[in-house]
């Protein structure tokens, strides 16, 4: 588990380089990614619900990114985009595709629905935090 969290740090760190994030911010991107994954693993162990763990993790990632954006005076997306990447349901997509390929439509429907639910949970979490964003910058206008 510790190995996974350390790997999440490096995975997010290197992913941020792919998106040309400037050198000074790379460490913070890695931090957001590994914290998000830590929270995901923790909640998953506790509740055993994939959707709920994704939701809470995405919520935490958005909050951390927001705080970092304020501290570092950067657009929030610098931290949010790499940070959220480990949660993107690539595995769900792959399993859905694999089941379709094997004509196992029952499994395909299950994984397909789960993938959409995860994507939805992440979206709602980001929306939730970004809405506060909107509130505060509308006020300052």
């Amino acid at each position: 588990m510790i190995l996974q969290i350390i790997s999440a740090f490096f995975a997010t760190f290197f992913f941020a380089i792919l998106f040309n994030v400037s050198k000074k911010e790379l460490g913070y991107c890695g931090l957001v990614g590994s914290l998000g994954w830590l929270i995901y693993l923790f909640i998953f162990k506790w509740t055993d619900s994939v959707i709920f763990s994704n939701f809470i993790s995405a919520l935490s990632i958005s909050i951390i990114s927001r705080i970092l954006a304020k501290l570092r005076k950067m657009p929030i997306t610098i931290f949010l985009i790499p940070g959220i990447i480990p949660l993107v349901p690539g595995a769900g997509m792959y399993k859905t595709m694999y089941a379709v390929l094997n004509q196992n439509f029952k499994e395909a429907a299950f994984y397909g629905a789960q993938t959409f639910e995860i994507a939805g949970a992440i979206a709602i979490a980001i929306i939730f935090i970004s809405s506060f964003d909107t509130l505060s910058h509308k006020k300052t206008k």
Partner: protein
Amino acid sequence: MDHKLLLNFAIQAGEIMLRSGAETYRVEDTIMRILSVYDFESIEVFVTPTGIIATIDDKNIEMTTKLKRINSRTIRLDKVALVNDLSRKYVLGKISLQDAIEELKKIDKISPYQPLILISVTGLTSAFFTIVFGGNYKDFLISLSIGIILGIIQRLFINLQLSRFLADMLGGFLVGFLALLLTSIIPSTNFDNIIIGSIMPMVPGVAITNAIRDTIEGNLLSGISRGVEAFFVAISIATGVAIALKVWLPF
């Protein structure tokens, strides 16, 4: 004050941000703020992922509109941050228009990370994600080599200006094929973990995040188009991997 110069500066700042993967609403907001420095009677800005239109009008000037079409987009989050910073400095009056224009030209010329770095980073991203999703050290090494090959192929596709969707489909096929080939040669490895980890560098993270954030800000048109982009990229990758599996599995 030269209003054309100001409009040009605002649009160019917006263009660089939009080309580099900023959210559409952020681009709209930035242009709006730059133009609001002078109290024009009316300022209208309309931005979509593929173009920018801005109009300014006042009693003393002729109504001026500028349209800028955005054709190619690359992900340069460093430029987004720098232009964002520059526009803030300009709006707060810390920098003159002339200096800001010079600064903007400099930002646009900043080069991305070296191709060699990007290629090795593609490999490392694949490798570490394989561990995150439960792979062992052998899976790690296989993903590392697949990722490096993927990185080289992606550079090649960019130079050939291949369509994003075709490039991702071929990338998915390559990942699937190499994963199956290497796992069949090397014992105690798991091709699921390797494939899931190795497709991560192709995941449309910017499109997904921006689709959500644009929708929230009421930029519905951009939200939908970016959502569709993300969806089709995902389908392209999955199709590529599926073709590899379909070709390989009967053997």
